[in-house]
């Protein structure tokens, strides 16, 4: 993780800021591209984005912490987000969660020791017709049964090894 955001990203952020009515309008997009490159938004990067867009730290961190797809803590190479909303609960997300935790050896909200996976809960993914639903990085899964977990995890492990 570099101390400062790469110059090309800075340029993109400034460009977005110029095209918005108010520079701060670009803050979500700015954090997204920074996160895409570095995995998460560290304090130094947050400060840098705030300065680029003329926002206070309180202001931008308010935005960052509001969205659950912006990470303010380090995450693993793969982020697993398991729906904890009502349809998925009815359809048995509890079993999937147990299996996931056992498989990865982590609790909800934790990252595996090898840094490969982070397991997080998420609100409705809009995939209720395929409940229980799960999102890994940008791929959606559902309906997920506990017995599918091994295959899905191993597939992702291979992809990122």
């Amino acid at each position, binding site marked *: 993780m570099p101390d400062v955001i790469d110059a090309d990203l800075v340029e993109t952020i400034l460009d977005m800021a110029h095209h918005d009515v*108010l520079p701060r309008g670009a803050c979500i997009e700015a954090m997204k591209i920074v996160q895409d490159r570095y995995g998460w938004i560290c304090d130094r990067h947050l400060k840098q984005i705030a300065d680029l867009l003329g926002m206070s730290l309180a202001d931008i961190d308010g935005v960052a912490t*509001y969205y659950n797809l912006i990470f303010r803590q380090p995450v693993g190479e793969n982020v697993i987000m398991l729906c904890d909303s009502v349809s998925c609960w009815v359809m048995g997300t509890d079993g999937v969660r147990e299996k996931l935790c056992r498989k990865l050896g982590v609790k909800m909200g934790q990252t595996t020791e090898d840094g490969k996976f982070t397991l997080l809960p998420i609100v409705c993914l809009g995939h209720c017709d395929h409940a229980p639903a799960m999102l890994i990085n940008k791929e959606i899964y559902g309906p997920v049964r506990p017995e599918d977990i091994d295959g899905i995890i191993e597939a992702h492990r291979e992809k990122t090894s």
Partner: protein
Amino acid sequence: MATIYIDGRAVEARNGENLLQACLEAGTDLPYFCWHPELGSVGACRQCAVKQFQNADDKRGRIVMACMTPATEGAIISVDDPEAKEFRGEVVEWLMTNHPHDCPVCEEGGECHLQDMTVMTGHRERRFKFDKRTHKNQDLGPLVKHEMNRCIACYRCVRFYRDYAGGEDLGVFAQHNNVYFGRYESGTLESTFSGNLVEVCPTGVFTDKPFSKVYSRKWDMRGAPSVCQHCSVGCNTILNERAGKVRRTLNRYNEDVNRYFLCDRGRYGNGFVNAPSRLRSAGYVMDGQMTPVPVAQALEQFAAFAKDGPIVGIGSGRASIESNYALRRFVGADNFSTGWAEPLHGAVTRAVDILRTTSARVMPLHEMESADCVLVLGEDVAATAPRLSLALFQTRRTACNKLADKNRLPHWLDAPVRTLGSDLKAPIHVVTPAPTDMDVSATQALRALPDDIARLGFAIANRIDGAAPAVSDLTEEETARATALADALLVAEKPVIVSGTQYASTALLDAAANIAAALVTQGKAAGLTLVLPEANSFGVATMGGLSLDAVCERAQAGQVGTLVVMEADLTRQLDASAFDTLVRSVRHLVVIDHSVTPTAERGELVVPATAFSECGGTMISMEGRAQRFLQVVYPEAPLQVSWRWVRDFAHASGHEGVLDWETLDQAVAATAAGVPAFARIVEAAPKADYELEGEHIRSQTHRVSGRTAIRANISVRDIPPPTSPDTPLKSDMEGTYTTDMPATLIPFYQVPGWNSVQSLNKFQQEIGGELRGGDVGVRVIGERGTAGYAGVAPARMALRENEVLLLPEYRAFGTGETSMWSDPIKARATEAVIRVGGDAPVARVSIQIGAEVFDVPAVNDPALPLGVALCPPHMVARSYEAPCWVTLRTISAEAAA
């Protein structure tokens, strides 16, 4: 007016208000959290649900949020509807799921809006049986305590702090049940208005930190109406007392001035009344030693002094006009000094003269909020009169409201109105020598030296009206600036000019007055405001007197036998050698003061005066508003108000008949009679014999506890409650208390069911309008004067080669006199640093002011021109206050390392 029906009762509602306001104005108890009269509605808390019916035939109705629904003609609503009631009860129950129920140890307890609303809705049994979420609290600095677990997420704090006061460092984080209001990380809240969070927060998330150390329940404290002493704005406050100590300061609503909010210097600056710096007994120098003496002996001493030649009195802008007038009457108008040295004396005198005669309107704060163009000319308002800067910041909201009108949105619909104006700047033009806190929100901020600002001002006035004095040899840039600013003022309907005495420049004041007068000739409803140095500078300058320099001259000529200094510290005006010369050249120095100042330390006879919390009196604010403050503490002898000391001195020295005042009422009447300009001050508040419903107004709540027990360690005998001839308030809990008692006598806000400061709604005729008890204070200036143009533009300010122009950099915390005896303000003040113009990094400077040399930390400021430096007044050289030329040697960062 619209007629609406609340539970079958027809009530009048104002046009454009919402149902919540209408209900509250109709006296209905409708619970709410997120709505605030000054912040408008956002519909965040869902607490003010009522049922609205389409028409008389509609029996089902539907639940609406009262704060988000306009009160339209013929609207039919029900507050008592069972479904609406149940809804409100459930909202509180749900808000309480994570609330810690720690009322017994919570400092909000007993004056908590959440408590009141919970009781009001009838929720009493907890059904939620899961874990509560918990938060970590932050250290928000010396003024405000943070306890996030108590939060109900009404968003009032950020809406005040960010939207209303322009603060940047308080934010809202996360979402859902985890919503967190705080800073990015622990640290002192930067805003000068952070203390208002204590009153804005409906529960105990933000509480008063200094009060916490001397905590007492609201119902256990005596209250009294007071007036802030820490700048010339004249904000109204309530002081709370228990066991002889002032515990805290609260906002007291004044429709025209401070309304709902105070600045932190006002809220936290009153600690000086309890500080160790207080003077508690009379003292006389015997054998070179200050020795406490009984009052009788002190007066005998004075009588002896009085035989040694003429007596000269020095008054003070921090003393009441009654005390100042008493001193002037005793020593004679020719021997009375205002206590200001030149050039400040000239500037304040001129400023008050302008205010009294200007053809523009001297506007109260609230009126300025609706200005559509503000020109701030050479005054760092955010530091010298913080509450004024907050009022000026509201001009931005006024601009938003205009957009709202175009879009047919009511002004109280906060979120859309704010979004409409999100790219608006406040219509403020700041022209100052150095950056100010107002720059960020202002349309533009221009930099110029004081005399050049005056030139610019004269040029603007001349552009607006050719009859105004012209400025010769304007540069192209000056002409362009003057034209642009004149145009901006001319397109406005309600332009306001703001200046003040910060740079002690009469030319600057004349320039401001000329612009305002020129705007009046163009048919504008122009306003003018001049910030003065102290809370009662207006009163003292109106009375008039010698400058301190003139007193020094007389003293050196041997014409002063006894110098009586009343509530003034001359070392803040005279440098060490001048002060020393003055003290040596008078035969006797007598000091009347509430605190031990360096002047008092040199006094031969020193007597203890009461602080403003222990006496009554009248102060006149910068808009000529005479306001009475009343005592909340009943001090023990020998403490007495300054005018009583003056009276006793007069009697002791054989001047019977000059001053025979026994009570404050007599003092006020004599002052009003003696100074024609003050004729109306008698109307500022009811007299001491005032009774409502045949009884005096009580200053304690009816449930105050421990009347006997509180001094049981001394004696268990019941002692009568203290009395004072100077206040119409009764010192105990026996007496009357109603919501329509005179506005100037309101000792605290509380009505049954409403124990928090929100009960204020019940004291107003309409929300945000006049108090039921009438006006607060009287203006001693007429509507409009007839003064024409005055003054001549100064020459362009030329910087010197071997000297540096040192300009006073006022601070909200640090440069005030009495507030710096208060611990919270001392903790909030930062170190004195000299800011030196130019790009070269500087670590320290060695600076010669007068005869003294100071070695002070410094930084360079590229925003300042070379040859200019800024110095916080009174923090480096004690007397330094007005611009002057100094020699300054810089020690660069490298050399220091």
